[in-house]
């Protein structure tokens, strides 16, 4: 019988397989950041162990880094201590680090792909659940805990039980204005936040094949929000074209050998998945969340659901609690929800394509009165690229704040937070209670919806702008 993409990559990394034991898998790339690594380094130190493969390890600073005044000392002592500890650990053990201020600094899941370090058929791990992002390249990529971080540092392997596989087949054409973010939000609403539990998801079908690498990363990024271990997309010409010429992409004969291998990384026709979900791309429209988990979402044109409409008692209760926290009324049109803040950024939607999309919408328009729009590139390089294209000017002229790279308001570990009761439209991946600041209320949206929302002050799609808001002609 044939094998799925996930099974092929898994099999190619088995260092040791023994009856009654989990497989021991080799790890091709280990990404580190300041939050989940300190105790792992401490464990190495206590046991007198070195990092086994410094050449497969790389660190950056993202969760705690400020997005303004990055040349000044970090005010919060806890954030400062975590960053300083990472710097000390990397220096002591010899790990390559891209600290705040470095051109390659940024959200770890933006940095890996942009350096060309994430490639098809690799195993990629990081002490962060959104490591699933890297699956967009046909890599097997998943988040790990701090003890596992130490395990990989010391051995470059992990003992793991093989998850099951689920195909998410998306056929047809996404309608105009419908993005990868809308698609993944719709998938999560469909299968639920626990629907992927125990599975590696493989996104496939004609709609997926047409997506850019950035869009594929957005999809794989949120696999974890469906409870999945990882998400993957088979590599193809789009993948190869993205990689070619990047700093760590293979060259010459190595490139040819790599591409020949990468082309074998497709699910065989006779392979069987443990589960399959089929989605019709043409039926989708811009999608937003109304609740406090990423599965509580609906098309923008819909209304806030009535908790009483849920058959399942626990879902009903969850919806009731969500509406209370979010300060929403059942039946209220989603478009009528006013926001205080718009956040464009994160490892879900902080790449150049996302910034371009948001900029194209706010260009010549103004952010609505009383709305704060924060644009945070996913990495310093994305920021530089945006500046070279003049996007920073577009955002600033529209009244948005243009910031330095980092996780920022995705989780509010740095000063970028919502105040209690404040409401945001956010291009990030989690709308949990208090995620963006204590008492903050989050609606997950695409960059396009975020931008339109910033202009109109309420949840909206670019299509709502056509007559409601006209652009100021250039030069006026």
């Amino acid at each position, binding site marked *: 019988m044939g094998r799925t993409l996930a099974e092929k990559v898994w099999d190619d990394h088995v260092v040791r397989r023994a009856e009654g034991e989990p497989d021991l898998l080799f790890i*091709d790339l280990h990404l580190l950041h300041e939050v989940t690594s*300190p105790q792992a380094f401490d*464990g190495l130190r206590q046991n007198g162990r070195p990092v086994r493969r410094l050449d497969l390890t790389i660190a950056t600073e993202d969760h705690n880094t400020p997005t303004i005044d990055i040349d000044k000392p970090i005010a919060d002592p806890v954030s400062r201590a975590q960053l300083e500890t990472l710097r000390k650990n990397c220096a002591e053990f010899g790990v390559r680090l891209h600290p705040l201020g470095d051109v390659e600094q940024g959200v770890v899941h933006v940095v890996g792909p942009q350096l060309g370090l994430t490639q098809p058929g690799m195993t990629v791990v990081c002490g962060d659940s959104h490591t699933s992002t890297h699956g967009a390249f046909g890599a097997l990529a998943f988040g790990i805990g701090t003890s596992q971080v130490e*395990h990989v540092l010391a051995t470059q392997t992990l003992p793991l039980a093989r998850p099951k596989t689920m195909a998410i087949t998306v056929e047809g054409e996404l309608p105009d204005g419908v993005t990868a973010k809308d698609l993944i939000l719709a998938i999560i609403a469909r299968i639920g936040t626990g629907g992927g539990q125990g599975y590696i998801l493989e996104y496939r079908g004609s709609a997926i094949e047409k997506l850019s690498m950035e869009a594929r990363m957005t999809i794989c990024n949120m696999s974890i929000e469906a409870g999945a271990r990882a998400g993957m997309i088979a590599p193809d010409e789009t993948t190869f074209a993205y990689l070619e010429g990047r700093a760590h992409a293979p060259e010459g004969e190595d490139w040819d050998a790599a591409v020949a291998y990468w082309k074998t990384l497709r699910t065989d026709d006779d392979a069987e998945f443990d589960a399959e979900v089929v989605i019709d791309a043409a039926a989708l429209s811009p999608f937003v969340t109304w609740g406090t988990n990423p599965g509580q979402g609906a098309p923008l044109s819909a209304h806030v659901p009535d908790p009483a409409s849920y058959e399942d008692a626990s879902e009903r209760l969850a919806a009731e609690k969500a509406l209370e926290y979010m300060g929403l009324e059942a039946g209220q049109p989603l478009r009528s929800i006013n926001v205080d803040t718009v956040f464009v950024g994160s490892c879900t939607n902080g790449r150049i394509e996302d910034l371009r999309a948001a900029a194209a919408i706010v260009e010549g328009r103004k952010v609505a009165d009383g709305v704060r729009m924060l644009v945070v590139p996913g990495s310093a390089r994305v920021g530089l690229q945006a500046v070279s294209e003049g996007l920073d000017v577009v955002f600033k002229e529209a009244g948005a704040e243009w910031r330095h790279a980092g996780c920022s308001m995705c989780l509010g570990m740095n000063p970028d937070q919502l105040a209690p009761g404040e409401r945001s439209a956010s291009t990030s991946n989690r709308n949990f209670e208090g995620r963006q600041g204590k008492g903050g209320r989050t609606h997950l949206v695409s960059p396009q919806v975020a931008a339109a929302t910033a202009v109109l002050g309420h949840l909206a799609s670019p299509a709502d702008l056509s007559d409601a808001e006209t652009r100021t002609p250039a030069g006026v």
Partner: protein
Amino acid sequence: MEAFTTHTGRAVPLRRSNVDTDQIIPAHWLKKVTRDGFEDGLFEAWRKDAEFILNRPERQGASVLVAGPDFGTGSSREHAVWALQNYGFKTVISSRFADIFRGNSLKNGLLTVVLDQKTVEALQDLSEKDPQAEITVDLEAREVRAEGITASFELDENSRWRLLNGLDDISITLRNEGDIAAYEAKRPSYKPRTLPV
């Protein structure tokens, strides 16, 4: 990880049930960036009371915690185990442990021993009557011994083997060094490296 074969020490009888990990180590300690230095956070709230058993002079240097049922419930934080170890406990005896806490403790070399509630109370009585009384936890014989008390306990073979040999997950994996090296030797050259070779 330090091997655990047999340990003899004085006890701290903690007559409380459902001691959760928040009580063992409060959340604000989780911001620390090391695995050691958690001893002052252990039972922090209770230790503000001078009469709390851990504060009593006759309990200084005790290394066996004899706890009430359902010890270690709540959050999965491994810090709870580190705090107990940093303080100097080598083993915890209770009639019931929360699953995740038990898993974390055995992973880190803190032996959690399950005895029936009557025996646990007998050990607590003994230690209260005579704070100098010693308790022996013998992993080889799977037995707890103290004056007038001998009780056997269960522990799965794999955990026992790992504790007796002081093997953490990493040392177990490193026993397959040959397999790892062989795998590394045949990795294709086109795979990326983060450092120049």
